[in-house]
């Protein structure tokens, strides 16, 4: 193997992390739009856009961090591997903890919500749920690849 060439699997993991970052960013935009539009439909106090952004700051931060770490992984930085592991593990643990909530609360009420919410918000809700499920699969995949290819990456990283 040539010293400066990234292994193919690592390239896939970097691409997956980039995809997760973009998906999280899309999710952030959808969440903001959904909350702003959804709350205007029900009798509930309205938020300023700053409050909505602050409430969803974590998703935005995760999106930015995934893209930044993917960039530094491509630059063969050793610390980027550890940072990527931390954020991937965080997402994995958060995903596992969300499973009971998904099956006991969210999925049983999804049909009811789809019926009663305005069509545009229902579509947004569905897209946001599918995007989060899809990004969770990508998180698991990139985590597995980065762990299995760690020795190859450490050899070429600085």
């Amino acid at each position, binding site marked *: 193997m040539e010293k400066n060439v990234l292994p193919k699997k690592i390239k896939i993991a970097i691409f997956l992390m980039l995809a997760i970052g973009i998906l999280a960013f899309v999710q952030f935009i959808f969440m903001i739009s959904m909350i702003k539009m959804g709350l205007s439909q029900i009798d509930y106090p309205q938020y300023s856009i700053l409050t909505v952004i*602050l409430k969803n700051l974590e998703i935005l931060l995760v999106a930015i961090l995934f893209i930044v770490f993917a960039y530094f992984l491509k630059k063969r930085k050793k610390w980027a591997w550890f940072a990527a592991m931390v954020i991937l593990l965080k997402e994995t643990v958060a995903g596992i903890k969300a499973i009971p909530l998904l099956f006991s609360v969210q999925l049983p009420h999804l049909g009811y919500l789809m019926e009663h919410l305005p069509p545009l918000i229902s579509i947004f809700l569905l897209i946001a749920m599918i995007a989060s499920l899809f990004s969770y699969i990508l998180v698991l995949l990139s985590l597995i690849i980065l762990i299995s290819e760690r020795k190859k990456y450490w050899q070429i990283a600085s």
Partner: protein
Amino acid sequence: MIYLIIFTFITFILAFTLKLLIAYFFIKLFNKEKSFWLIFKPILLYELGVFCFFIINPVSLIYFLVPQQIIHHIFLFPVYFIISIIILFLIFKFIMKKFSLLDFKKALFVFFIIFIIITQIISFSKKMVDYEVAKRIPASEELFEELLALRSFQQESYYGLDFSYYGPMSPDIIILKKVDRLSEIFLGSKFLTDLYFFLYSIFVLVY
């Protein structure tokens, strides 16, 4: 309100710096010949490790075993509490051993004194200072009212979903909560509450 946020953040930075300095001087007692950076770097690494640990929070997965049952939380909390402290100590011990600063007994002693006792005193002092200042700000009355409203709202639900996330909150409260989260991680400000719940859980289990 912006002054209260800045003040809370400044007290957090000061308290954290004080904690780092006390930890430095304590470790320096056992390593008089070592330079400043050789002692300070492991301490910073430990704090980074603690940050990563709380960000990932793997121990909270034990609640996944029996979700949404308060009685089970009382059984699981002692396990959660003890495992968390053991992992934090192992991170500390690993870093101290890696940098050849402290052996097991000394690491245990320093960990107990610095991160369990002194950090709690610093954290409690910070809380008291913040509270005394917050009381003197006229706008803080509205803030407390909003916090109370939020607490009562969290017990409600909407369409069977937990909508506490969408509870009434001003940007100021959100930022204050984020600074508070930093205090929880780096100053262990929730430790005393956790310790109280730990003892309570043990009491419930025994009787």
